[in-house]
């Protein structure tokens, strides 16, 4: 028999290393004569969209089409430290460093532009990689300006470091001034079906509301929600390291199961964008927060479906059948 259930979980996730750890990112932005804007950062893209996000941030600040942006690095020989791609931190930390470096460069564009036009800053306008002395009048491209600046022995280039201070929580109370740079919030509701013949769970629908501050790239954020939740469902339903006499007996992808494409539920997600964090454009990290709601939401849905609380992960078919039997 199939029994339906619905479960909900809400999470908050403090991201970055936090707790007083000297977590930081350094980035450099340079406008070059060959019509490129080079962003140097050592941050690694593991498929989560780091390169896209940094490109968008630099392009947004510098008011230019993203196709001109070139990310150089992913390598500490070519760029300075951007910290690890972990702890849900790159958009916030490296994003802030890129934003600040780009703002420094924008300051230089205005500075050298005003010298070139012999005008005041308020009269200058920037649009699509060009600097105007006033509306519809004299203009100069970033690349031309870079060449002029170079003749002065200077560069349209700047480096910035984002190095926020955090504090360790009190050991007794767990309270603290600012333990993490910001928190991401998420609520998930899951609809499931439990097969009482086999103990198998099918996740039908996942509804997500994610407070991400601001989605730099909404499609990427939806991808993170779906990918993270599926990983979380793997933890909730399948992933199980089986050790016998000190040896892991399922150290391969045939026997250590993660969800297949066939196991993926329908997703419906809403992004809450209050632009309320200290991240670039008010954004917050979205990696790990999307994983941790799956287990509690699923376990609540199981309780709703069959009236039994399963208190260990993964929630295997065996556990479901045993619990159903005990309930009788």
């Amino acid at each position, binding site marked *: 028999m199939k029994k339906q259930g619905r479960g909900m979980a809400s999470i908050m996730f403090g991201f970055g290393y936090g707790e007083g750890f000297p977590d930081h990112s350094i980035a450099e932005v340079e406008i070059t004569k060959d019509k490129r804007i080079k962003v140097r950062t050592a941050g690694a893209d593991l498929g989560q969209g780091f390169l896209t996000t940094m490109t968008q941030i630099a392009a947004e600040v510098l008011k230019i089409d993203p196709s001109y942006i070139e990310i150089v690095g992913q390598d500490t020989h070519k760029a300075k430290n951007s910290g690890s791609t972990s702890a849900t931190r790159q958009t916030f930390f490296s994003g802030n460093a890129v934003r600040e470096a780009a703002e420094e460069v924008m300051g230089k564009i205005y500075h050298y532009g005003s010298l070139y036009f012999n005008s005041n800053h308020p009269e200058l306008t920037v649009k699509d990689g060009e600097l105007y002395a006033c509306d519809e009048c004299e203009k100069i491209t970033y690349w031309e300006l870079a060449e002029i600046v170079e003749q002065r022995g200077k560069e349209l280039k700047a480096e910035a470091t984002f190095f926020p201070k955090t504090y360790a929580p009190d050991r007794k109370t767990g309270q603290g001034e600012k333990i993490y740079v910001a928190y991401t919030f998420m609520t998930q509701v899951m609809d499931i079906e439990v097969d009482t013949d086999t103990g198998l769970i099918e996740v039908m629908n996942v509804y997500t509301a994610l407070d991400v501050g601001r989605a730099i790239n909404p499609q990427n954020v939806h991808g993170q929600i779906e990918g993270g939740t599926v990983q979380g469902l793997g933890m909730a339903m399948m992933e199980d390291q089986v050790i016998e006499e000190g040896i892991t007996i399922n150290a391969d992808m*045939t026997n250590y*199961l993660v969800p*297949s494409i066939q196991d993926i539920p329908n997703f419906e997600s809403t992004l809450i964008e209050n632009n309320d964090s200290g991240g670039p454009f008010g954004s917050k990290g979205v990696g790990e927060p999307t994983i941790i709601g799956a287990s509690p939401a699923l376990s609540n849905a199981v309780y709703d479906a069959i009236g039994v609380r399963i208190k260990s992960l993964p929630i295997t078919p065996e556990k479901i059948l045993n619990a159903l039997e005990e309930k009788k």
Partner: protein
Amino acid sequence: MKKQSINVKNKLGTSGKDSDKYFRPESKEELKKILEDYTDELTVIAGGTDLLVANYKNLYKIEKWLDLNWLDSFKEIKIFDDKVEIGSMVTHERLDKLDQIKEHFPVIQKAAADVGSPQIRSRGTIGGNIVTSSPAGDLLPTLLVYDAKLKIISKDGERIVDANDFFTGPKQNVLGDGELVEKIILPLEENKSKGAWVKVGKRKALVISSISLALNLVFDNDNKIKDARICVGSAAPVPLRIEKAEQSLKNKKIKKVNIAEIAQIVSDEISPIDDIRGTAEYRRKVAYNITKSALQEVINQ
């Protein structure tokens, strides 16, 4: 003296001596010659979905390969008045997609659709599934409920073996050195039959079954069960026919069958073990439940 059995065509595009160890006959005559020359030295490859995984780290140790992929006659499906012959090199993909299989042997079609992933179904073969002889082989219970016979060939001739007598233990069977399964012979039933297939695995695709069940009931003209076959996979050293349950189904109208009693017999008769895909206890419970649901499915058909 070294025997010269390698087809010169095989050498095209290869270098070194590797091709000396690789044979790919294109006719039964060529196959017979190779079997005569190298009978006990050959490792047979069909789709490779089991063999290559099992030998992933020591393929170099394989002395001589016999590749059946160029034998077109092994890929044929022939339909006669009273039987269907399926070549051992027919893939799961074809079993899944062919209308004739769906029409005459729906339980085989459903099991073939449940094998692994699209990639595995397009490479893996019915013969490979049989010869690997895993208790979890998805097609095996379905062959047993259709009373399949296997045509086995070797350099010395051929023999026919009941699929039910073929499997002797986990990954063990009656094949001797230099014997190959050439085709699977499935009798065509004159009477109406109804079947069901249940595969239980911990995810929906690319999963080795925790337990599986194939059911086939043949009805006589009075709508009584003339013949009943139930076979359970992944619950004993071999795919296991539950003859006691079959006997108690026979000569009854389906609506008169005590489903719970049959399910209990199936649950009692299997001999499951604890492993990574489920405990013995779990398998007995699920065997009971899926026997009930499979019988119910047939009643509803």
